[in-house]
């Protein structure tokens, strides 16, 4: 990638400032960028220091929102943020590792030269990722329906999944993985297809087992796609909203109520909007996502040296 960043801009010495002609090309996108990304981001930071009802003008309150969220155990925002963040972390921990490991295993199996029907298997694992989360939730709720669902009928159990823990999390994890593994698997497969066969054969001559080959050849080669999928899957998982909303509505007893659900309810729920507070929570969530991504990069970068 590095060559594409500066392959054609160094040799021009007399470059002029941006002109009308250039604005015609970059302008339309740039306006939308400013209106729907840059301005909202700045305004979001500003709003997090205000008391605001979403429509009227915000009034400055300094650090009050952050104090309530982070330091005041008597505040309902404190307990909401805490519970939401803990539940979001549970979701991240429960889904992200499997979103990497399962696709890796599938990709390795599909790499086996004797296996036929690779495109067919790939399609089956990939298509659920294209199904909307609401349609998927309706289907998975039937699969785990206590009386009518195939899971209880096949296992002969009578667990009421969505309203008891840990079963509520299991449905949420299951339907998330169902939609999430295909994309990562395709990425790993194409990264693996670039590995020369000679490498594996040379390793075999040296008596390397499949495990050794996987850890010494396959994994190091696909390091960057692996890092990419880990960072992207983690960031996406922190934004979880639809799955718990659809499957459990945050229950039982708010044990699956994730942070995005609190943020949405505070800003857009019934009753008076506390958008300033919600903005502060969204900034905190954004910071958590950035910190974790930076940490993952660092960890992967170190271990690769």
């Amino acid at each position, binding site marked *: 990638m590095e060559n*594409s960043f500066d392959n054609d*801009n160094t040799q021009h010495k007399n*470059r002029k*400032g*941006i002109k009308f002609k250039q604005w015609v*090309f*970059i302008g*339309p*996108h740039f306006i*939308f960028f*400013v*209106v*729907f*990304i*840059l*301005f*909202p*981001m700045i*305004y*979001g930071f500003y709003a997090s220091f205000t008391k605001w009802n*979403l429509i009227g003008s915000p009034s400055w309150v300094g650090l009050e929102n952050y104090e309530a969220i982070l330091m005041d155990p008597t505040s309902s925002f404190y307990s909401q943020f805490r519970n939401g963040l803990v539940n979001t972390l549970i979701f991240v921990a429960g889904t992200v590792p499997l979103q990497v490991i399962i696709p890796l295993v*599938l990709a390795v199996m*599909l790499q*086996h030269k*004797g*296996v036929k029907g690779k495109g067919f*298997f790939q399609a*089956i*694992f990939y298509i*659920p990722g*294209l*199904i*909307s*989360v*609401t*349609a*998927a939730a*309706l*289907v*998975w*709720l*039937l*699969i785990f329906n206590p*009386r*009518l669902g195939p899971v209880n009928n096949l296992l002969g159990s009578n667990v009421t999944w969505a309203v008891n823990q840990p079963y509520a999390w299991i449905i949420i994890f299951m339907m998330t993985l169902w939609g999430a593994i295909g994309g990562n698997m*395709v*990425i790993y497969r*194409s990264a693996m297809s670039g590995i020369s066969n000679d490498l594996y054969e040379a390793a075999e001559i040296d008596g390397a087992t499949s495990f050794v080959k996987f850890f010494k050849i396959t994994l190091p080669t696909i390091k*960057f796609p692996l890092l*990419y999928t880990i960072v992207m899957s983690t960031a996406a998982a922190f934004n979880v909203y639809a799955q718990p909303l*659809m499957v459990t509505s945050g229950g039982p007893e708010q044990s699956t109520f994730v942070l995005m659900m609190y*943020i949405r309810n505070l*800003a857009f729920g019934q009753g008076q909007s506390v*958008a300033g507070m*919600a903005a502060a929570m*969204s900034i905190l*969530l*954004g910071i958590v*996502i*950035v910190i974790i991504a930076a940490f993952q990069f660092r960890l992967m970068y170190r271990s690769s040296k």
Partner: protein
Amino acid sequence: MAKSRSFRLTKWACYILLTIMAAIWLLPVIYALTTSFKSQSDVMQTGFRLLPASWIMDNYVRVLSNTSSAPIVRWFFNSLFISTTHTLLMMVFVSLAAFGYARMDFKYRDTMFFTILAISMFPAVVNIIPNYMIVHKLGWVNTPLAVIMPGLGGVGNVFLVRQFMQGLPKSYDESARMDGANDFTIYFKIILPLIKPVLIVTSIFSFTGSWNDFLWPTIVLNNVDQLTITAGLQLLQDIYGNYMVIGQLMASAFLAMIPTSLLFIFAQKYFIESLNLNTGIKG
């Protein structure tokens, strides 16, 4: 011949595991599909039966003829209009901007591009609340514009198309310029035809992303008639689910799955390519 024996052993182990996984992955869709053809009394029978006692179309007829509480046909066309318009506008904006950032010269061009790229990488959750205010001020709440427009500011697609354009030889532009072509002619006649593959890829992803978007439409659309199908399905649990009309629930879910799944079946090649583009792997 020890090697070929272990080859066969691992081959069958792979087949068995892949088949089990594929069965688990397929079961929900197949069970939903067969349930959508079951009668209400058939659905309520306990015990696992995959196929209906008799295949009926009633669920689909009822779901498709609902025009008040869950107007699914209307939602379907709302989604089709929103996702298509969003995708077309996206392609125009993205190809123009990428041309500007990849093939035109101006001071601080790359600094400007990488600055907006870096800004756009900050988690989008922060933007949601102010974006509502903007959409509200523009008078777009409860109109398709509210879901079509905000996503067009994203920088990811511009990055991909810009990368692709930088791979095209500079001499194309230069010889055209010698023949008296201006930037617009070069953009339309030379670059646009050449970047078709990457445009197809990004448009497929814009379309499915827009079709499946859930949180934002539920914030800016609160009129039942205006909903997208992805947002609308949320209401179905109350409308059909609570009365256990599961056949109709599944018929609705299945209808919502059709467009993106069909798109995949016809454009599988491009889906796979797009994932490689995103990670920077050469297909």
